[in-house]
């Protein structure tokens, strides 16, 4: 054998061809065969098959989102069995799972691309403030049940996982304008493009409406959001998102200038690294900023005689300004083996809340949180799966919480599978519950002297500041707990065209935090001096209740063809409540028991016709229920903030015209076609259902958030 010098780079010969674009294309044609490609559908992007999920799950996909014509995310959650959706007012939608909610949705967790949007100050989900355009959502995966072992604390009754689309899925320009009832004027512009390995999308929009008929609940919102996806190389991917939103909204009460100004912003950065075919890791950081300035009312006190003195009148603007910030860093490791799939991670979070006259300390307050978690699936045999998870979490408010989850899934065959599972989760008390000291204060003067006479100061307890405390937390709250047991059955029939989902459940909650009225308010010098009380009093938060929920949820999805689909569900729930704290309000027991409708069901029909005509019909029936924060305990106790049984029928018709690569979409959405109803705030009406009954108690809103027939017209133009 004669082997001439073997050198891969033995000679450098000319390639004048490089300047030839046609041949460059040739080269890339072959690159397509030979290139190493990144893992696009990595373990983090794959969705678990419904029949292998350890907990009951509902997925609202893009087709359902389009078909619903929904303008808000909570409206989409009407499609989830066991969820309750209501409008506290026109700009404050609320969604909860299995009741137990006031206007703040504090017992469900909401994640947007892995970013918790739970606000740590007053608690809950700022549905209307989130910088997520419904149009940018790819799908919503709703875990119907606690899942703290995966998503952490506050994943209490359920978890709403919102996934926005990868930037590459939105290429070109999109302009949308929506007009309709309640002076609705929405518009947004989206642009997406690609620069080599970088895909990006920018959305700017405005959202405006007058809210509902009787309330001061208008919305004026402007927002900007963006997403960048950068495939660094075959093994590394970087995602970056950001957004900001400015919202001005009327605050429910029909008081002039009573409004809320919210600034919301976030930044989110995630690096994903593919270690091997079976292993990957990710590092994620996000920052949430929520600044709420709420002008409540102006308190005007005229000159008031006080013995020989006259206390000078004053005018006090009652405001509630709370700024919340969150820094969160999370590390995840994914192992995706043949029989074992495992996700493990660590995270650290810092919540900062800054407010005056709201908490027991003015200025910034911090809550540190650390978590370690693991959850995985072990394939015992082809027909048996074992699923388990554990989260250990430590935070400054409630100390250490442990949240385990376990489930066994038996796949009888390709068509039928059964699931039995148990899960435990906790909800950490929020600062408002642990450290509330909500008060109004005013420095008094008398007789125009600019000071307050010592005699009056003595009467006020040795101070010239008049203070009225409304809420004062005694603190030392325990985390709320929930233990959930479920039996599930999934059937995939008719060549997988029909999917049936059944869930029998029993949930037990403990340490639920409730209001204790009339506790001693040490800094209050208003109640006795001017309020006619025998002692200074305020409300407190204390662990007070436990509840037990049992019920059944079932849903079906029938995909007859790509052109016709029917989805429906039914939910039954029975809630029993018990008060173990004798100081709590006894009527709250009933509030818990009726905080979800006993029966509710819904149906959605989607039909795609020829010539790009699309129609959908959605029907929902929701039984009687009351929200937890309905006001007062007087005669009309159960009338306010309730939702008497209602039927909701929505229709969406859209037509798409194509001109080459350009598209024009015209869409008409009609809502509430059967009847007008109140899904949250119900005012007592007279028998003729027309006359508003004005409450003699000014603290009770005399109006309701009427959900009447509405029509929206949407025009969308897409072009490259």
């Amino acid at each position, binding site marked *: 054998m004669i082997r001439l010098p073997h050198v891969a780079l033995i000679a450098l010969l000319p390639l004048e061809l490089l300047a030839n674009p046609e041949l460059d294309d040739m080269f890339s044609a072959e690159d397509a065969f030979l290139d190493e490609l990144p893992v696009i559908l990595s373990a983090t992007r794959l969705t678990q*098959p419904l029949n292998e999920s350890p907990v009951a799950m509902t997925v609202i996909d893009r087709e359902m989102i389009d078909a619903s014509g929904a303008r808000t995310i909570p409206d989409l959650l009407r499609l989830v069995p066991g969820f309750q959706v209501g409008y506290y007012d026109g700009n404050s939608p609320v969604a909860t799972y299995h009741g137990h909610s006031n206007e703040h949705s504090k017992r469900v967790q909401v994640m947007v691309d892995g970013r918790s949007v739970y606000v740590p100050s007053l608690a809950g989900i700022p549905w209307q403030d989130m910088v997520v355009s419904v149009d940018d959502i790819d799908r919503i995966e709703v875990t119907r049940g606690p899942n703290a072992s995966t998503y952490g604390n506050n994943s209490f009754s359920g978890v709403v996982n919102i996934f926005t689309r990868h930037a590459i899925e939105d290429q070109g320009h999109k302009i949308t304008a929506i007009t309709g009832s309640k002076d609705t004027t929405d518009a947004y512009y989206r642009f997406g493009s690609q620069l080599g390995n970088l895909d990006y999308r920018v959305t700017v929009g405005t959202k405006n409406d007058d809210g509902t008929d009787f309330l001061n609940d208008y919305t004026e919102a402007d927002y900007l959001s963006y997403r960048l996806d950068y495939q660094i190389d075959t093994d590394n991917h970087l995602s970056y998102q950001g957004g900001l939103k400015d919202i001005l909204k009327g605050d429910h009460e029909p008081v002039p200038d009573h409004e809320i100004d919210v600034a919301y912003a976030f930044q989110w950065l995630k690096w994903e690294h593919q270690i091997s075919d079976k292993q990957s890791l990710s590092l994620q950081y996000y920052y949430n900023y929520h600044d709420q300035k709420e002008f409540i009312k102006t308190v005007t006190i005229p000159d008031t005689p006080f013995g020989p003195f006259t206390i000078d009148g004053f005018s006090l603007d009652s405001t509630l300004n709370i700024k919340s910030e969150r820094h969160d860093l999370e590390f995840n490791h994914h192992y995706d083996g043949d029989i074992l799939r495992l996700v493990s991670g660590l995270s650290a979070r810092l919540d900062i809340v800054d407010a005056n006259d709201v908490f027991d300390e003015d200025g910034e307050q911090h809550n540190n949180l650390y978590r370690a978690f693991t959850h995985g699936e072990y394939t015992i045999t082809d027909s048996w799966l074992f699923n388990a998870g554990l989260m250990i979490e430590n935070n400054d408010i409630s100390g250490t919480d442990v949240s385990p989850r376990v489930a066994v899934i038996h796949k009888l065959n390709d068509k039928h599978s059964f699931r039995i599972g148990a899960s435990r989760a906790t909800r950490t008390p929020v600062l408002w519950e642990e450290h509330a000291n909500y008060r109004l204060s005013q420095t008094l003067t008398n007789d125009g002297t600019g000071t307050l006479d010592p005699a009056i100061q003595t009467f006020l307890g040795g101070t010239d500041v008049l203070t009225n405390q409304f809420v004062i937390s005694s603190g030392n709250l325990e985390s709320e707990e929930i233990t959930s047991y479920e039996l599930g059955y999934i059937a995939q029939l008719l060549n997988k065209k029909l999917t049936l989902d059944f869930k029998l459940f029993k949930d037990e909650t403990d340490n639920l935090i409730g209001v204790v009225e009339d506790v001693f308010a040490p800094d209050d010098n208003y109640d006795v001096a001017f309020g006619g009380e025998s002692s200074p009093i305020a409300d407190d938060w204390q662990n007070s209740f436990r509840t037990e929920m049992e019920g059944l949820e079932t849903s079906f999805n029938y995909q007859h063809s790509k052109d016709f689909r029917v989805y429906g569900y039914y939910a039954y729930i029975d809630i029993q409540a018990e008060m173990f704290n004798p100081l709590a309000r006894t009527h709250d027991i009933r509030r818990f028991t009726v905080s979800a409708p006993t029966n509710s069901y819904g149906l959605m029909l989607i039909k795609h016709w020829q010539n790009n005509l699309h129609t959908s019909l959605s029907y929902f029936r929701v039984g009687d229920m009351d929200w937890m924060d309905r006001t007062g305990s007087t005669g009309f106790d159960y009338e306010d903030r309730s939702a008497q049984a209602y039927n909701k029928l929505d229709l969406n018709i859209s037509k798409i015209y194509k001109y080459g690569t350009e598209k024009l979409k015209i869409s008409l959405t009609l809502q509430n076609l059967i009847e007008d109803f109140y899904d949250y705030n119900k005012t007592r009406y007279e028998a003729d259902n027309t006359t508003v009954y004005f409450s003699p108690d000014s603290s009770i809103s005399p109006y309701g958030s009427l959900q009447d027939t509405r029509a929206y017209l949407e025009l969308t133009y897409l072009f490259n």
Partner: protein
Amino acid sequence: MNVFHVNNRRLIHTPICTYQPHILYRVVFLLLFLLCCLVAQSAFADNKTILIISASNNTFTKSIAASIARTLDEHKFSYTEKYIAADTNPPDIDLDQHSLIIALNSKTTDFVLQHSKKAPVFSLLVSQQSYEILKQKYNRKNWSTLLLDQPYQRHLFLIDALFDKKHKIGTILGPYSLKQKNSLIDSASGNQQSLSIENIEITDQLISTLKDLINKTDVLLAVPDPVAFNKNTIRGILLLTYRKGIPVIGFSKSYVKAGAVAAIYSEAEQITRQTFNIISLFLKSDHFTQALYHPDDFSVATNNNVAHTLGIKLKPENKLKQLIKIKEDAK
């Protein structure tokens, strides 16, 4: 003159003389002998061996080059390897002095065809589209090509083997693959398969076209085309189809790693084996039996994780290959 001999051993036949030659004969013989030696020397100096030439740094291309070199070693062929890099001066070798040039990929082939006049050329790692362009550019007789592309029918057989029932197949053709539209349609109709084809002219049209296409198809067949299916468009293709529950059939192993449910591809050993068979025949007969070859052997790769989440129960890769072979043999 082709002076290449197996094992590079030059067989020089020395006359056997049974008589004492005349001195003049001796001189003539000596001169002839010297002439032969000179010719032989010249032949060695011309280095008339197989040339393996490549213009790609691609890992797979390198592995193919190494694999071919190894095989030539094993069979005691003489060869030279050259890597052609960009921005250099004119060729420092005479390509025509080689008995056979093995050109790896289309760019190398273009270079070789441009700078050689008569040396036989065997190209591999060349796509069908590149081949069509090269064919138009050069009217070369002693040139044969082993394509990277698997026959369309093979992909369609794979789809049949993957799914129990007939699926509506969709694909997008760019300007480079458009020429193969009829061939694709014929293959699908011959296999009683429903096929929807969308055309795009520029990459910017891909996403919107794909969004429409996946609403009316059950499976997407990726077809090599630098405008439609490349490393920058694969992200959108795989994500969009996955969201709609549409499996993608790729044309390389990397596609499967990235998220395609299955792909047919040829491994380095399979390409090398076929290459060696072709050039062995050539070296025996001094001509190529075919101008164009498709890969005769192939492998099937599947992505169990993606298939699993899409609710597709996959057959083992060997079984899929076997089913395809049965269909191919039946044709």
